[in-house]
């Protein structure tokens, strides 16, 4: 049992993710790149975490491992007591399908599918999803559902991506620089959508950013440097996305 502060409240419960001595090495021909060097971290249910740090510090690698996209080289990532490193291909696919919602920097929508169909792409393969319409409504795009990505602005495309990620009501929402390609006003709208959805669905949210201004919307800020955590800050005054500016 670990006692921890989430927001202003002290909670006392077991973590959703327990990360122990996590390492990841990319072997590229003769060169070994150590992306993670023994990370220890616990993440809790409903928590909003922002990962910060320079490029190559290991943030995205951690996110990919949490999302079941990548496999650790060493150490453990326990999700509700199950070590992700032990999952075979089939189980890892099932884990991604039922548990993870992803938002990428460059939206990654399928250009040949409308907003609704992009969301349906996910809702069709999971049990008990939101309807695509409801998910798009949640990000404020109910009236743009039948538009193709090319007919949407960058911010709108990213909100479709958020809708796609939350439509399955994921336990974990992983966002890799979701505002990286957007201007500040548009970025704030997208962050609002993420914040709102994660609150409504009680989703654990892990968000990577280079933008320190965004850190204020999180319960915790975790700083990465050189493949490891350099600092963890607890945010005592969480701000809503609307209050941000950069």
């Amino acid at each position, binding site marked *: 049992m670990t006692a921890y502060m989430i927001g202003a409240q002290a909670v006392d419960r077991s973590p959703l993710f327990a990360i122990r001595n996590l390492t990841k090495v990319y072997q590229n021909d003769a060169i070994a790149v150590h992306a993670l060097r023994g990370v220890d971290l616990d993440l809790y249910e409903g928590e909003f975490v922002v990962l910060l740090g320079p490029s190559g510090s290991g943030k995205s690698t951690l996110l990919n491992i949490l999302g079941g*996209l990548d496999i650790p080289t060493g150490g453990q990532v326990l999700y509700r007591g199950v070590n992700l490193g032990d999952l075979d291909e089939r189980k890892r*696919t099932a*884990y991604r399908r039922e548990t993870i919602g992803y938002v990428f920097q460059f939206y990654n929508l399928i250009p*040949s*599918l409308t907003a609704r169909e*992009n969301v349906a792409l996910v809702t*069709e*393969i*999971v049990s008990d999803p939101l309807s695509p319409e409801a998910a798009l409504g949640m990000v404020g795009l109910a009236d743009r559902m039948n538009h193709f990505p090319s007919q949407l602005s960058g911010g709108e495309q990213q909100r479709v991506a958020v809708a796609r990620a939350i439509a399955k009501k994921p336990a974990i929402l992983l966002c890799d620089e979701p505002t990286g390609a957007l201007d500040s006003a548009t970025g704030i709208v997208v962050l609002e959508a993420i914040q709102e959805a994660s609150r409504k669905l009680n989703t654990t949210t892990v968000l990577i950013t280079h933008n320190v201004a965004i850190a204020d919307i999180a319960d915790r800020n975790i700083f990465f440097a050189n493949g490891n955590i350099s600092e963890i800050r607890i945010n005592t005054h969480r701000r809503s996305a609307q209050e941000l500016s950069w």
Partner: protein
Amino acid sequence: MRALNKKMLRDLWRMWGQVLAIMLVIVVGVTAFVMALGTVDSLDITRKAYYQRYRFADIFLAVRRAPETLVPRIAAIPGVQQVATGIAHNVVLDIDGIDEPINGLLVSSPEFGVASLNNLHIRRGRMIRPKATDEVVITEPFAQANQLAPGSSFYATLKGQRRKLYVVGVALSPEYIFFGVPGTLAPDDRRFGVLWMDREALSHAFDLDGAFNNLALTLQPGASESAVLKQLDRLLLDYGGVGAYGRSDHVSHATLSGEIDQLRSSIHIVAPIFLGVIAFLLNMLMLRYVETERKHIGVFKAFGYSNIQVAWHYGKFVLVIVAAGVVTGIVAGAWLGRSVTEIYAEHYHFPFLEYTLSPLVFAEAVIAYGVAGLLGAISSVYSAAKLQPAVAMRPAAPPVYQHTRIERLGFWFALDQSTRMMLRHIIRWPVRSTMTLFGIAAAIATFIAPFGISGSVEQMINTHFFQAERQDLTVSFAQERPRSSIVDLIAYPGVMQAEGFRAVLAKVRFGVKERRITILGQRPGNTLTRPLDNTGQPLTLPDRGVAMSKTMAEWLGVRLGDYVTLEFLQGRRLIRTVPVTAITASYVGLTFFTLYMDLDNLNSLMTEGDVITGVHLKTDPTQKLQIYKELKETPSITGVISHGASLSTMRRLLGETLKMTVINGIFAAAIIFGVIYNNARISFVERYNEFAAMLMVGFGNSEIYYIVLGELTILTLAAMPLGCIGGYIFSWVLTEGTANEVFRIPLHLDIQAFGIAFLFALCSVVVSSIAILRQIAQIDIVEVLKINE
């Protein structure tokens, strides 16, 4: 519809140009396959039904003269079901408006009202009235070629008597579907026809009352053909039997079977080419498609789509293309098959057509193209399934370029950066470069191959008509005549040179192998007709032994100096052992089965005096008409072959082959262009960003064009030798694969074909690269840089 299926359909629509092109190749391939197999099966079945309904015999035999009283003894041979005797005689016809003498085979009509053999199917007019002495029924092809119909008449010399004959009917017979004058390369409907006449009238004309010179019989089911042949030969030995033979040695049957087999084997040669092209094109399409879909694949997997679901998504893409092509092809093939079969049935003069299209053909098409599609798509679908989601999410890492071995060579430093980029790119993607290389090579091979066929026919014609047989006319006698009769012919106006020959039917035996052949006796000093040696030079016949074709010698296993046994099927039917003293060239089927001998030697072996059976003539072209007139009126002559006419028949045949060459050439050209253009396009799309970056730092469009063009040129040049070797092999397969005993020509591939293929491949490179040039001009640097941000 599920979102993923919608995506697939929209992707198909987006890439409609390429998809349609590939689909069309499939449609053409399947249509041709279904059509051709349907045609071949139908022809086979129709032929069988034709034989059955018109009671085509199983065994045939020509004799000099045998009494009708022999029939019960023939019928008593174990295994014989039914016997039909008749009379057949070669005659020379004189048709109004045609200068040349026409060769006719006068045959007694099958007995009326009795269950007979080799029955006629009357197309027009009627059967001959019993005992009518001047009525004939003629074959349809002959009637058509010479515009004869019931009511027409012409003259024939029957045993020295010039008679006017009236055509009362036009008919078809299973016995004479294909039939030509012995000694000619191809049937010629204009100059040869079969005529049926009343049996009694014929027997009076040829002094064969109560006798026959022609025999046909059917076998009981399960009877041994060879046993019956042996007994029959023994029984008719004393009556001048020249050896009974079964259907496989029957000229018409063998030719027809040969044609049907040829059609069938050409399907099996062409089909794999189509399949290979399909696999190749699908492979190109899918490699590029999956490459551009990297990120999407990552997204699918990140959201929990399994590897199998991803593979199925891309597999389905291929499946839709293949299925649409195959279904369209099957429908088109089934629809066209009937009309094509009708054309063939018309060509073969079948009296009816039984069209059939087995569902098995559809199944074969589905399986073959399914497998080709699978082969084409498997590597890219597999790579899509295996792509790690985390890897897929990142833009593809810059390809790992390395210093290659050739860079250690001195000239590398002299190369500019563009040339280095070009070379490194080829080396960096060895599999794709090799694939492209093979693709181009295969296309070049396909382009070259048909030249082999037309080249071989051309070569064969040249050899036969201008080297081996240089006479203008070949005249044959009803029976052996003294050699001195040459003098009579030389006396004809316009005859410049005459050389006598003797043709004898015989069997040649060596060890356990045996075959019916013709022995041609002629003087070693002959200049009009002479056998050729293996280098194509005229061969002086040795005064002893026989000269045998290379093919025949190989088939028998005979080497120069070995002794073979000759069993003469004519005359006293003597059996002689002679050495093989020379090997002759085999340039066409006809020459394979001809053994040459010094005429003196042959005559002394046969002990029948100094005789000949025909004469080759060299004539004065200005006196052609007089010679024709004389020949038509000479009673002893039963056949006249004009070599000019044979040559034009062969030229017509060559023309048809050339047409095929052109069609094949267009097809191969499309493949070459498709392969080269596709490769150029992929190479361009793949390096779009690289090229944009080059433009940004100040390179011009021409430098980029240089890279694209250079890469294609290198690959094409490298593919050339392989393509030439492939083309040679492919030509060989085409000529050998479609060869049969009646029609076989040795491969002759002109060096020109390689040159044309080479030029064409280079033209394709230039045209493809010009198409890319347009796209280079449209590179949007700003857009590329934005994406790279």
